């Protein structure tokens, strides 16, 4: 590991100033991803600015009915929060489906959004990787890619974003707040991760040196009936091979409102807007759900070894929406 300086900050302005003064510096939150990557040499910061003690650890309801989640709130505290469990149960389920109890106690909301892909070629510094070393190539396209992207990938990178939390946040239209030396800003999570294109190394639309300060969930009555389902290669403590966050509101047998997002299929949490368009106003039943899945997956471009994901996601859409419709009818 490269030697590095360390500084703990208790003030957002100090944090932003320190990072702005040093392009080789990184913010340290829970460290569950960054420290791991530093051990393997994927990340080689010259300085860590420890932001864990910043006063950004609150979850608050705002006057307009939104829920504001501070960036240093731990995954555990987010999942356990009564308002999250009541108003956005799929978010609690998504967080609890990720990592382990130990890691959820350490990891933070801001860090979760910035975590790196678990693509084996990205993690191995002896291999080419366009994300880690732009222009060096992508061995995954011809190599090991059974857990890689089927949606929105490019010839330059087929890695998937590993977050579970981000999938539920994307379904519920979360907005990311950040601070820079030039002042604060906001980014809808839908615009937070740019398309891969030929720049897979540009992973977020955050300005350079920006510090995520929080995430805001707008009011979404539909989210009260929501579910996160994750498929993985073992029963617990593994990254997804496919996941879905879904919320459904049915009135008189017709889909009144719906939210759908997919995980582990793209370089970012994938909002399934084509599917949502098919669903809104249509009868809440199996045929509609299957048509919605088809609509979203029509643009899927599976690689030789990950075609199963198309079937998997279709089944997840139909299965979870069917369960939610049955629950709504109760």
């Amino acid at each position, binding site marked *: 590991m490269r030697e590095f300086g360390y500084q703990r900050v208790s003030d957002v302005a100090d944090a932003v100033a320190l990072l702005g003064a040093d392009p080789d510096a990184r913010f340290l939150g829970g460290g*569950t991803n960054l420290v791991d990557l530093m051990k393997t040499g994927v990340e080689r910061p010259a300085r860590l600015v420890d932001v864990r003690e910043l006063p950004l650890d609150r979850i608050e309801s705002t006057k307009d009915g939104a829920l504001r989640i501070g960036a240093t709130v731990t995954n555990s505290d987010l999942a356990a929060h009564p308002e999250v469990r009541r108003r956005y149960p799929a978010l609690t389920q998504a967080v609890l489906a990720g990592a382990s*109890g130990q890691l959820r106690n350490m990891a933070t909301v801001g860090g979760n959004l910035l975590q790196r892909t678990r693509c084996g070629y990205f993690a191995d510094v002896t291999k080419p990787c366009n994300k880690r070393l732009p222009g060096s190539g992508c061995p995954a396209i011809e190599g090991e890619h059974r857990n890689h992207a089927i949606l929105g990938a490019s010839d330059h990178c087929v890695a998937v974003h590993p977050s579970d939390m981000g999938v539920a946040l994307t379904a519920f239209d979360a907005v990311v707040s950040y601070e820079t030396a030039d002042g604060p800003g906001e980014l809808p999570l839908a615009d937070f991760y740019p398309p891969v294109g030929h720049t897979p190394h540009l992973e977020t639309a955050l300005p350079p040196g920006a510090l995520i300060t929080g995430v805001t969930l707008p009011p979404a009555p539909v989210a009260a009936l929501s579910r996160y389902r994750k498929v993985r290669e073992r029963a617990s403590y593994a990254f997804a091979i496919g996941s879905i966050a879904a919320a459904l509101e049915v009135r008189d047998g017709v889909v009144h409102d719906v939210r759908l997002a997919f995980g582990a299929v793209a370089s970012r949490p994938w909002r399934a807007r084509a599917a949502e368009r098919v669903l809104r106003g249509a009868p809440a039943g199996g045929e509609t759900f299957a048509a919605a899945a088809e609509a979203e997956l029509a643009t899927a471009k599976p690689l030789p070894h990950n075609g199963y994901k198309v079937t998997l996601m279709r089944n997840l859409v139909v299965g979870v929406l069917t369960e939610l419709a049955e629950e709504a009818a109760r």
Partner: protein
Amino acid sequence: MAPAPSSTYSAITLNINGEKYALSVDHRTTLLDALRERLDLTGTKKGCDQGQCGACTILLDGRRAVSCLQLAVAAQGREITTIEGMAQGERLHPVQQAFLDLDGYQCGYCTPGQICSAVAVLEEHAAGWPSAVTDDVRPEAGPPPLTAEEIRERMSGNLCRCGAYVSIVQAVARAAATDATDAETAEAENTAEAVA
């Protein structure tokens, strides 16, 4: 604000099991390595050293964490509890006793991490935290019963290569029951005192 000093090491004080330890650490030092290599607290084990096995589990401010991904310098100011701090004198923690009584181990290498994790699992459950196998996570549903399925999910961050999981689950269940009995006994005693 002026750029930070470029030093790559710091003099720190760690609060471990109620005692203060002063040491100078290279910033690259993980809490796990500081405990084992610098402070001779070797009860905490190194397994994978990349946050995947749970052998190095300790408590940070009362919550379980993997010490292999925790930088020592960033642990300054926090209350650290290791396996060495679980017993009260000669009296084992109820979780330790349950692991002993029910053979919740085979080779024992993962056991300190399993025990630290289990201690935290009981507290998380008592605080009403749901898990990934909890059917209804809404607060109105109340805390789920600590079934074998719940214990397995909550303990899934601790791997046991010997495969002693069956007895580990039993030990955690036994400790949970002991906890509940203690609480009921204490409550009964309080009630008795109040009546008297």
